[in-house]
């Protein structure tokens, strides 16, 4: 009896083969989270002073959950793990998460596979802000943010705001206009940065290390400033995944599918820029994570932003924690060098594997 209705049901399901709930994203998310956990534990345990994995876990459980664990570690180990490494590892995770989400958003919004979180002037704005801060001989702190972080944050936001406002005056199609304005203003700010570096004298090294990016100065205070911005803005972007999906077919098609393109573009741009600014303020300019991670995720699960955004967040966090660990183990290299060394060949391999390559 039921066999008959099952057969009918099976027949109506036939055309939807490949459309049902795909388990792959869940598997990818599980594997990604496990890898991230391993990277965090390794990041906290390894370094110039190695802390045994059991002790690392013990310290974390003791401090995080307040459990009474038999104390097999030295107070020095606890200080290293809790005061130095954990904030650094978590900051790397937050920055990696933020850059990957911002990169996904900019790529989808600008419909450009080469877009990254820095494409609309945030990088050069932040860099110029940081350089000016280095040149100012006053030291102040605002909520654990030094002058450098504050100026970098404001520089990034100021630059992207200027790009957005200027692009709306242009006669070109909005997307082209945004990209070209970003490029033009970015070049102008880069000139300012070059001038600041030229004038900086002994402070040059400090500016330079900001440009290459690092988590050397990570602290609980900095993390407390950046993490809420990154997490809240990423969550708000995820709630707008529907709009980002609509933009896949172009702005007019998105409008036909019910997306208020002008409003959604402004909101998504603001959120992604805020994330980028928070990231570059605490870590400097770290390339490739925001560019490469979303592409890798899309190759695995397809273009649906509802999946690409959270999976990129996990992947970005894992990649950044790993890259920072490698940078530390190799003797405090700039983490941006590591992400480039990992990211660039990976990206090239992906381009070769994608059957027809990316239409640019």
């Amino acid at each position, binding site marked *: 009896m039921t066999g008959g209705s099952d057969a009918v049901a099976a027949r109506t399901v036939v055309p939807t083969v490949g*459309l049902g709930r795909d388990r792959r994203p869940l598997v990818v998310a599980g594997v990604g989270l496990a890898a991230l956990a391993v990277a965090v534990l390794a990041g906290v345990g390894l370094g110039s002073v190695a802390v045994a994995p059991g002790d690392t876990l013990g310290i974390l459980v003791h401090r995080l959950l307040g459990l009474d664990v038999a104390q097999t570690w030295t107070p020095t180990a606890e200080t290293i793990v809790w005061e130095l490494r954990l904030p650094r590892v978590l900051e790397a995770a937050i920055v990696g998460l933020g850059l990957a989400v911002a990169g996904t958003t900019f790529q989808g919004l600008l419909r450009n596979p080469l877009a990254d979180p820095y494409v609309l002037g945030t990088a050069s704005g932040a860099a110029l802000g940081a350089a000016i801060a280095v040149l100012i001989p006053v030291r102040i702190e605002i909520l654990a943010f030094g002058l450098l972080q504050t100026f970098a944050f404001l520089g990034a936001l100021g630059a992207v705001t200027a790009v957005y406002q200027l692009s709306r005056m242009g006669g070109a199609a909005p997307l082209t206009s945004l990209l070209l304005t970003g490029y033009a203003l970015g070049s102008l700010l880069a000139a300012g940065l070059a001038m600041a570096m030229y004038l900086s004298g002994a402070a040059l090294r400090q500016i330079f290390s900001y440009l290459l990016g690092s988590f050397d100065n990570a602290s609980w205070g900095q993390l407390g400033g950046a993490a809420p911005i990154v997490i809240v803005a990423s969550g708000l972007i995820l709630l707008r995944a529907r709009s980002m999906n609509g933009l896949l077919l172009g702005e007019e098609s998105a409008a036909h599918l019910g997306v208020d393109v002008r409003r959604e573009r402004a909101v998504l741009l603001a959120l992604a820029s805020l994330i980028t600014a928070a990231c570059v303020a605490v870590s400097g300019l770290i390339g490739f994570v925001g560019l490469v991670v979303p592409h890798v995720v899309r190759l695995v699960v397809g273009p649906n932003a509802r999946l690409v955004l959270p999976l990129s967040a996990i992947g970005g966090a894992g990649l950044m924690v790993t890259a920072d660990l490698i940078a530390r183990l190799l003797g405090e290299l700039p983490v941006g060098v590591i992400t480039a060394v990992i990211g660039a060949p990976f990206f090239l391999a992906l381009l070769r594997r994608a059957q027809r390559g990316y239409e640019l």
Partner: protein
Amino acid sequence: MTSHVAIRFDRVSAGYGDRTVLRDVDLTIEAGAWIGILGPNGAGKSTLLRLMTGLLAPTAGAVELAGRPLAALSRDEIAHQIAVVPQPASLPFSAPVESVVALGRLPHEDRLRGLRAEDRMAIGAAIERVGLGRLVGRDVRELSMGERQLVLLAVAVAQAAPIIVLDEPTIHLDIRHQFEVMDLLADLNRRDGRTIVTVLHDLHLAAQRIPRIVLAADGRVVADGSPAEVLDADRVRAVFGVDPELLPDGPWRARSGSAVGAHG
């Protein structure tokens, strides 16, 4: 309240910047009608489509959708009324056919959870109906322009709006697929009762298949009626600037018969 009029233009003028493209257009499209918009390049056909889908606001007059002023509707409300089949555009990322067709469910899907079972059913049904089963799993960017056009048609079918507006839906298609698309549009029109508005360049295909023709020229609607009424030899010569004798068989050949046919 549902209206028997799907789309109404009331003395609409529109343009871009200082340039006026359409002047004083009156047009009424009844619910359940199938109309073809014809006219030479630059006649204002695309502008008509942009006005009826709310992408362009009129400089004078008003456009109504199902009895309500279009200007007062949100994009979401319009998307529940009108599905649009545009010309294929390039995609920034690779995307399998089914995930592009799934975009047709955007106006219906749950904002938080995404596609539900009924959405998946509608996507599967749209793929089936447009005959894209063999393309499932393929990257849309690998497809021919004609195949991409069919994918966009499936997006509109999945969107399940009462009105479908198509911009040159057959332009990239081979002759068999041209006929199949016209068959599908006829079926969507008659069986599902959908209102269909098609911009076409192929006079012959339009005259053969579409019951009502709106002829645009120089920013105005110059004729509106059955193919036999609208596409007579003199008008084809005047509007398109070609000798109708050079065209394949159509209403423009039936010189003396057309007047009788139009009134009989």
